[in-house]
């Protein structure tokens, strides 16, 4: 119910949470942003202390009073310790690699302890998707959590609100805070698994035949470059050595082809067109072709390699929807 209320009135939510999203740079959880309430175990603990108090009064047990009051004082101390475990953590977002719509986006969050003591058992939960992890932040150290958020649509996917929570040290209190760092992940259109259309397919095939025997002819290894496709990384070799190695193929031909919006059937909707184009980009890249992309108002000159494919896919991802 409260969730729905906050959903409908974002300004009320901003006031309640004490910040206006999204937040740039490192977000520090100041005390104002850390909330604390007794957890379920805390109520059980309080009941135990009450029973001990009544028993001590009834039987006039001096040391029973001593124990009761020690436990009460420890409850108080636990409250301060729990709030401290979360207070002043610095949260910053890391790089999020682009994904295709329908896949989970992997958001990295860096939790900087910024303290001389360690901060055990910090829960980070993405509110939208419910994905969560519990980590320990070492003293003077930083911990990284990877939250998997499904990308439903193409385009920029903002991280959204993240809950940070802890019950350390005794589990009696629950301290929590919300952050919304300015991190986003690019979601490419979901690629349609389709062959290249006949005109370009023939051109591509002809060019490939002329130059080589095929795409899968392995010719050797070279060191990895950032633009290499992960599919071409020689994972087995990587596992043996420590260096990233890329497989080279002799079939890498140079047939120039245009993936053109105009080639698509007329009756196709916008999202389906983008999906099919995305599928073509992948197919062309797989085929080792030298390809360009032409959309209404956008033209990307022919090229090859992962960086080129990424540029094409980004253009498709950010193509305005209306």
């Amino acid at each position, binding site marked *: 119910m409260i969730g729905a209320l906050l959903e409908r009135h974002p300004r009320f939510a901003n006031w309640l949470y004490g910040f206006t999203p999204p937040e740039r740079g490192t977000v520090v959880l100041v005390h104002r942003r850390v909330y604390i309430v007794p957890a379920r175990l805390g109520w059980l603990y309080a009941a135990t202390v009450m029973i001990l108090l009544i028993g001590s009064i009834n039987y006039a047990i*001096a040391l029973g009073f001593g124990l009761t009051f020690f436990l*009460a004082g420890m409850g108080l101390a636990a409250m301060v*310790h729990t709030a*401290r475990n979360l207070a002043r953590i610095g949260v910053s977002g890391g790089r999020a690699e682009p994904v295709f719509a329908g896949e989970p986006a992997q958001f990295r969050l860096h939790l900087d302890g910024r303290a001389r*003591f360690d901060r055990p058992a910090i829960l980070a939960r993405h509110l939208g998707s419910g994905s969560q992890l519990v980590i*320990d*932040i070492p003293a*003077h150290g930083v911990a990284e959590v990877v939250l998997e958020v499904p990308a439903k649509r193409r385009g920029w996917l903002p991280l959204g609100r993240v809950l940070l929570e802890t*019950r350390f*040290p005794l589990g009696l209190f629950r301290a929590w805070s919300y952050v919304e760092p300015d991190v986003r992940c690019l979601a490419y259109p979901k690629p349609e698994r389709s062959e290249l259309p006949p005109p370009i397919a023939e051109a591509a095939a002809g060019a490939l035949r002329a130059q080589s025997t095929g795409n899968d002819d392995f010719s050797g290894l070279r060191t990895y470059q950032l633009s290499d496709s992960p599919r071409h990384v020689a994972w087995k070799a990587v596992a043996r050595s420590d260096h990233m190695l890329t497989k080279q193929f002799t079939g890498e031909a140079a047939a120039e082809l245009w993936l053109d919006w105009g080639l698509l059937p007329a009756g196709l909707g916008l999202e389906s067109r983008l999906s099919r184009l995305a599928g073509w980009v992948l197919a062309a890249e797989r085929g080792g072709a030298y390809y360009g992309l032409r959309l209404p108002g956008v033209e990307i000159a022919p090229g090859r390699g992962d960086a080129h494919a990424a540029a094409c896919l980004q253009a498709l991802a950010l193509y305005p929807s209306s």
Partner: protein
Amino acid sequence: MKAPAHPLVPEIRLVSARDLAWLIGSLLLVILPHTLRAPWWLTLLTLCLFGWRFYYALDRAPLPSRWLIIGVAAVGMLGVWMEYRSLFGRQPGVLLLLLFSGLKLLETRTHRDAAAAAFLGYFVIVTNFLYTQSILTALLMGAALFSITATLVGLSAPNRPPRANLRTAGLLLAHAAPAALVLFLLFPRVQGPLWGLPQDAYAAMTGLSDTMAPGYISSLALSDAIAFRAEFQGEPPPQTLRYWRGPVMWDFDGRTWSVGALLPTEVSPPAAGRVAYQYNVVLEPHNRTWLFGLETVASVPPEARYSIDGLLLARLPVRARMRYEVTSTIATATRRDEHPVLLRRALRLPLRSNPRSNALAAQWRSAARSDDEVLTRAIGFLRDGRYVYTLEPPLLGADSVDEFLFTTKAGFCEHFASAFVFLMRAAGVPARVVTGYQGGDLNPFDRIVTVRQSDAHAWAEVYLSGRGWVRVDPTAAAAPGRVESGLARSVPQTQQSLMLRAELEWLRNLRHQWEAVAHKWNVYVLGYNPERQRDLMSLIGMRDADWRSLTATLFTVLGGMTLVLLAWSLRRLARPDPVQRAWRAFCAKLAAKGVERAPAEGPRDYAARAARALPGARRAILQIAALYIGLRYGPHASARRAKRLRRLVRELRLT
């Protein structure tokens, strides 16, 4: 730095063998004193349940079914019922709690269950205090408190090394201590109980009883338990005068003496004589109304009344350690004009019992001219009769006085007192048995007289017309050492408990020092009650503190302490760590030369840019950045590297 991540919050994770071992260890510590009192089969059953659960943890097998647990619970409860014929009351209740601690473990799956079991451990701690609140128990239970808390910390931080958890537990307890002290002193104390206590709540208390059969005091004399302590203003009276008056026995059935019913007459004690002793007594609870005082009591504490046979009586049975102030005087005789009803009662004897003693008394009566002379003859008879004073008297039958006087001729003080009073009554002299304590141990360190159950004694009082009740100690006639130097020197050593033996001087010395500490503990910690709380409050300027003003003070102080604790937690956070400080200084130095760090620039990129811009300091800049990255994100952070980073930043000269 890489930290292991887990998708579940700790409290719903399954409990690991490590955490379970901590929990079981803590619970063992808590139930240790109980196992010494519990029947052996219950101790064994509880330990088996603990071991069973631990076996499951090692074996990773699913826990036993609920029906099996209920079955074990039913068997255990049946056993307790067979043993005590009840499931309620103190001892059966505690035993059931032991059983449940084992059963609770058997259904402990998650960390939350384990935390609930740990709370049960806190609860069991307090049940130990129902039996004893000695310093040793307090220390053991303090260790248990620490251990349970460390277990709880471990449950909420499963990846942490146990040493770090112990440190956190210690920190928590240290932070709790001031609040606990304030609560202990200021929490408005109410005099319990709030409701009726179980029948056996005070069963463990030892002390004198309202009846005296042969062999009764000698069994008490084997106990080293403390009856009370007395602190005198000025010099305590000598050993031979330290008769602490207890219940007075009027009625005799041929074998057993008893207090009987006394008319509740309001009387006041005799005025204090020339030699008066002022002292206060810290009385151990004995579940009776008697307050012991030195003969003859001359003042009545406000919480007591004075009985017609010269005894101080509390209004309610003494069930908590009690402290009162008395003045006593050394009088030779009391109540010169005793009521004739009481005098008649002091002559009553059962018909046809102990015929030989009766005959002997009748013979004295006819030969003597006065009561005094009868008395002298009786004392002489006991002194010259070669009676043996022993802690292990032979058993006596129905005519106990005859058997003692003429057959066995060996007995403890109750035999002498009983026989003497019988002889007096048979000879027509009003007499009664007085029980109580004689002597007591003077602690040379704090000058406090400690009276133990082993000082229990019985003597006689005879009524001599014109003088009143006069104390006669028949034991002193037969075994003078008993009164002059205590029990230790008057019975054979093999019959005494270890502590009483006189030759172990160093042991006694050690014991005296320990008891001085224990006395302080009793008075200041265990004896803190509503009354002392009022005293303390008036000491700090709060006259007539009621619960409202106490609560207000309590909350003010507690609030202030929480603020201090909060300030502490902020202080630890506010200061960045030395590595971060060094890095900031480094950034500031570079910024002064025009190379400012962009908000989103990582240390590696920033250092590379700075090295290009300031080629003169290239080496130092890259070294600092590498060290910083290693310390912040690498697995090998060490104090030595941090020190080196600080030195490099300090010595960095940019041109």
